């Protein structure tokens, strides 16, 4: 009961501060929380990353293995990004099959990386129509502190950048691992996801869990290295004006440039 009252007080505080252009953690409206990226944390995986975005923490592992291509996509390798919120990450998370929020999270992270064409999937083909390389990028939220969209996206990108891709040869039409030979994944561009929340008339970048609890609507915009906009997802139970959305797209580009510099150091 008490905690409900505290939550309400915190929301009031957030709204009061925003009226004066301030955020409860002292950030400016268009400022992200510090992003800490550590790679290679799961040595048994082909790539991995541990990402902290403020209080949110993600672990991503990449597994690379030969696979059959999807029908009608025989000239492309397979890239699948997933995301799940571990029950230890959040008192409200529940074990079991993913709910609609987790499904949206996983699909938005996946589309951000897919639509920017971060990886040249044509280079992951072993025998056209028969055998390709599959990359599975699985992200687990281990501490939930708001803005899981961006945190999972950053961890997925960092996990991919940290990858060593094993080499496969074809013998008797089947792929065989060539021990000891690896390469970097074929990276074409660096996607950066930037999520903004609308709280009243204010747009804030990278909302915390407390800010999310009082936001009206949410927008996630992914841009690529060339400054193009490649994926967008609006969420939340209210809307935006067109002007607000254009403002958001500019913010996403500006914030994206900063994050991309952190990614470039990993390459």
């Amino acid at each position: 009961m008490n905690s409900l009252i505290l939550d309400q007080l915190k929301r009031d505080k957030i709204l009061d501060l925003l009226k004066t252009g301030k955020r409860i953690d002292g950030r400016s409206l268009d400022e992200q929380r510090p992003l800490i990226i550590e790679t290679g944390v799961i040595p048994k995986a082909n790539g991995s990353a541990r990402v902290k975005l403020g209080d949110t923490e993600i672990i991503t592992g990449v597994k690379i293995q030969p696979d059959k291509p999807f029908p009608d996509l025989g000239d492309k390798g397979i890239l699948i990004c997933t995301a799940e919120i571990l029950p230890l990450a959040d008192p409200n998370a529940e074990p079991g099959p993913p709910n609609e929020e987790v499904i949206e999270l996983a699909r938005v992270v996946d589309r951000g990386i897919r639509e920017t064409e971060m990886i040249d999937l044509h280079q992951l083909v072993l025998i056209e129509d028969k055998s390709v390389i599959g990359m599975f990028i699985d992200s687990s939220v281990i501490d939930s502190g708001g803005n899981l969209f961006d945190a999972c996206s950053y961890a997925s990108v960092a996990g991919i950048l940290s990858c060593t891709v094993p080499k496969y040869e074809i013998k008797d039409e089947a792929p065989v691992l060539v021990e000891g030979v690896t390469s970097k994944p074929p990276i074409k561009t660096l996607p950066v996801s930037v999520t903004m929340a609308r709280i009243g008339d204010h747009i804030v970048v990278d909302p915390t869990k407390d800010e999310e609890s009082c936001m009206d609507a949410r927008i996630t915009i992914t841009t690529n290295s060339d400054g193009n906009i490649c994926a967008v997802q609006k969420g939340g139970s209210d809307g935006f004006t067109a002007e607000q959305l254009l403002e958001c797209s500019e913010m996403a580009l500006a914030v994206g440039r900063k994050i991309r510099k952190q990614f470039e150091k990993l390459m």
Partner: protein
Amino acid sequence: MVKTMTQLMTEDGIRCDGRRLDELRNISIKVGVLKNADGSAYIEFGKNKILAGVFGPRDVHPKHMANPDSGILRCRYHMSPFSVTERKNPAPSRREIEISKVIKEALQPAVILKDYPRTVIDVFIEVLQADGGSRCAALDAAAVALADAGIPMRDLVSACAAGKVADRIVLDVNNEEDQEGQADMPVALMPNMGKITLLQLDGMLKPEEFKTCMQTALVGCKRVYEVQRKALMEKYFQNGEQ
């Protein structure tokens, strides 16, 4: 399978289905097509054929999902097995679950839920035949079905996509353009309040194209709104009677 690349646009901007850049496909909406549902609508939007039915406000099951301070809105977007080229498994896919969520969030700002605490309004959408832009068409039908059910609303919700095809921004992307084009941006608008309640993008747009694309979609939403209004008027105010 070898497939010849579809010619998506002629040099003078005529699209593969004969439309101009800023032209909508044919849209027709019928209101009140179902007897059991409290409200319903059937839309044909290009080759999309979609039914929406609304039940509620009614009791919530299971009860622990009820909200003592407000009604809740639930939404199910579902595709018939025969709605697409390859027969679709009838179990809801992850794609359908995500679309159900974004449609719910696009309708929610328009529906006045506060007056119906502890109840639920259920919106059920069935895509009988799918074409490009099925989520927008589904939203358009659902908004009309909500109005037909007598649910108090702040505004309608009108949805339409724009996109980038053969390097040009086009209104209302069809199936071929969606699959072989460069970008698809579905948008939903509360037309009188000017509020955008759904926005997604798959593809690649320069910042200035992003702006043009959104504005193009908004023009489409407003035209869709006129079709929705007309359909409701026809049912409720034909011959001057309620």
